[in-house]
């Protein structure tokens, strides 16, 4: 079992600020995260949704360790676990940077606290961890009572920390190293990403490690796929069960006339495009819908939604929110008012866990969902290549921003709107209102496996 700890960035900052405050006599501060769980046989997620500071007066003097809290502090955490049916993660820090490792005291005391927490609430996992801004070392008590070590952390927000996923080893990398040793200069292919080095010293390593899912490989998704392959993404989940036909050729990037003749799967076409740029990429290109690939999808660091259906978008966003995955949706529509020229409208929306959702951003009003559900005979919607390209570029730009933070923009706009006739993308006029609200549809505490309460 290889558990993954996921913490929304604002919560992580709150915890680190609290844990790094000096105490009048204790050398270390301690705190608790409340978390929901997403169970999985190999890779359970601990999804933190709240942080609780321990009051100064609940620390006790103990020279044998950096910090010790009294029974009342632990009982308060036990009470939360029991009352809210949630997990508690007892945390402290050894400093903000690097990957922490446990001391002997940590290894002795952590399991004792976890046992107390499990006595209060044994139906969900309980744990303890040392955290830094970029790493963790902890133990979680599974439902069978066994303790499992974990070191994988993901920080979710506008500068992501992605899990320590092993980068795909490439033959190109091996050849480069041998070439360097023998001839003392770089292979021409090593210049490959020089022109995007402004994205940050570690940006290429981030791209190689992170895992991206694209749901829908038509006009929008195929553009996103192409750009991600150029940027250097190595782990991609492609979700689409459809085969290409001739009517797709006006906009499906990477497709050929003969693909349409042979009615190839869209996932095959997307996968082929990636492999021509990244021969060693790790691609899940089984031609299936996202609903049939949820094991792969839940592992993704970012999901791009490029589907026509509004109901499908609602369901996909719900899945992403449940697993604390940033979701970037693109969509376009051609309006043809009578007596007026047609106009293209579109939008790129970043739906970040803990922030306003697609419904908050008025993409999914109930009337739109109702209209779609009742409209059995809705034909194919008009689509064309260049607006899809603009929207896809904006979506990839948002993903690169939250992965690398290259621009220093702390809050890239959640929703950008396209006006096709003017070829403009502008921050949505809804943003001042949307940014002022707290999403009531997906509070962080509703993440994780569904919480059914017996009636």
């Amino acid at each position, binding site marked *: 079992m290889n558990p993954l700890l996921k913490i929304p960035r604002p919560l992580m900052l709150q915890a680190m600020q609290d844990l790094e405050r000096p105490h009048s006599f204790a050398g270390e501060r301690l705190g608790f995260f409340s978390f929901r769980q997403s169970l999985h046989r190999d890779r359970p997620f601990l999804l933190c949704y709240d942080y609780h500071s321990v009051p100064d007066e609940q620390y006790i003097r103990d020279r044998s360790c950096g910090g010790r809290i009294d029974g009342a502090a632990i009982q308060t955490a036990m009470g939360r676990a029991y009352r809210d049916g949630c997990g508690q993660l007892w945390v402290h820090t050894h400093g903000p940077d690097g990957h922490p490792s446990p001391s002997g005291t940590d290894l002795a005391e952590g399991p004792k606290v976890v046992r107390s927490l499990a006595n209060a609430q044994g139906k969900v996992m309980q744990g303890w961890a040392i955290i830094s801004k970029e790493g963790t070392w902890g133990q979680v008590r599974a439902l069978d009572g066994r303790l499992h070590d974990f070191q994988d952390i993901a920080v979710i927000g506008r500068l992501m920390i992605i899990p320590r996923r092993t980068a795909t080893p490439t033959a190109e990398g091996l050849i480069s190293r041998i070439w360097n040793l023998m001839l003392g200069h770089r292979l021409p292919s090593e210049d490959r990403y020089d022109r995007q080095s402004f994205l940050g010293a570690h940006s290429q390593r981030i791209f190689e490690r992170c895992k991206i899912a694209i749901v829908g490989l038509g006009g929008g998704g195929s553009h996103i796929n192409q750009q991600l392959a150029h940027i250097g993404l190595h782990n991609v989940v492609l979700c689409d069960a459809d085969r290409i036909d001739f009517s797709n050729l006006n906009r499906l990037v990477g497709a050929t006339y003969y693909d349409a003749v042979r009615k190839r799967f869209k996932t095959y076409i997307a996968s082929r495009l990636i492999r021509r740029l990244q021969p060693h990429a790790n691609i899940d290109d089984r031609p299936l*819908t996202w*609903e049939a690939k*949820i094991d792969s999808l839940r592992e993704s660091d970012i999901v791009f939604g490029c589907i026509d*259906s509004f*109901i*499908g978008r*609602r*369901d*996909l*966003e*719900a*899945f992403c*929110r*449940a697993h604390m995955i940033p979701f970037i949706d693109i969509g376009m529509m051609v309006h043809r008012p009578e007596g007026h020229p047609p106009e293209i409208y579109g939008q790129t929306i970043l739906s970040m866990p803990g922030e306003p*959702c697609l*419904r908050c951003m008025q993409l999914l009003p*109930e009337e739109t*969902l*109702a*209209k*779609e*559900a*009742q409209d*059995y005979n809705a034909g194919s919607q008009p689509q064309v290549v260049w607006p899809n390209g603009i929207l896809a570029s904006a979506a990839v730009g948002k993903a690169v921003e939250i992965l690398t933070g290259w621009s220093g923009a702390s809050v890239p706009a959640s929703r950008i709107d396209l006006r096709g006739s003017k070829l403009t993308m502008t921050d949505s006029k809804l943003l001042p209102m949307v940014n002022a609200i707290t999403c*009531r*549809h*997906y509070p962080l505490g*509703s993440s994780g*496996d*569904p*919480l*059914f*309460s*017996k*009636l």
Partner: protein
Amino acid sequence: MAFPADQIEALKKLYPELAAASEGGTDFIRIEKLVLPEPCQPKVVAGLLCPTEREGYPSRLFISEKVNHSGKANWNPANGSMILGQQWWALSWKTRAGQTLVQTVLDHLGAFRP
């Protein structure tokens, strides 16, 4: 989640195993063993009742399998819905407004009859 207590008690007389959950701000009631009318195959499935308006329907009853039935209604959405981490299927059926929970479920079951 606030369902009228008397209506829940009445529903439990028909279906003793009920549980509530919400997703995206919508409340659902899970019915563990929902018995479908003859000649549905399979006959017993799990049900997920959304007693409030959803997708233009006054209420919806999702079931855990796409069963064979002899009603005239279509499955909508045709490829099912992912709700609360599970794939569900629902017939396109509009129930009458102002019904109790029991009446709503029985109204939906009518869609499976010839």
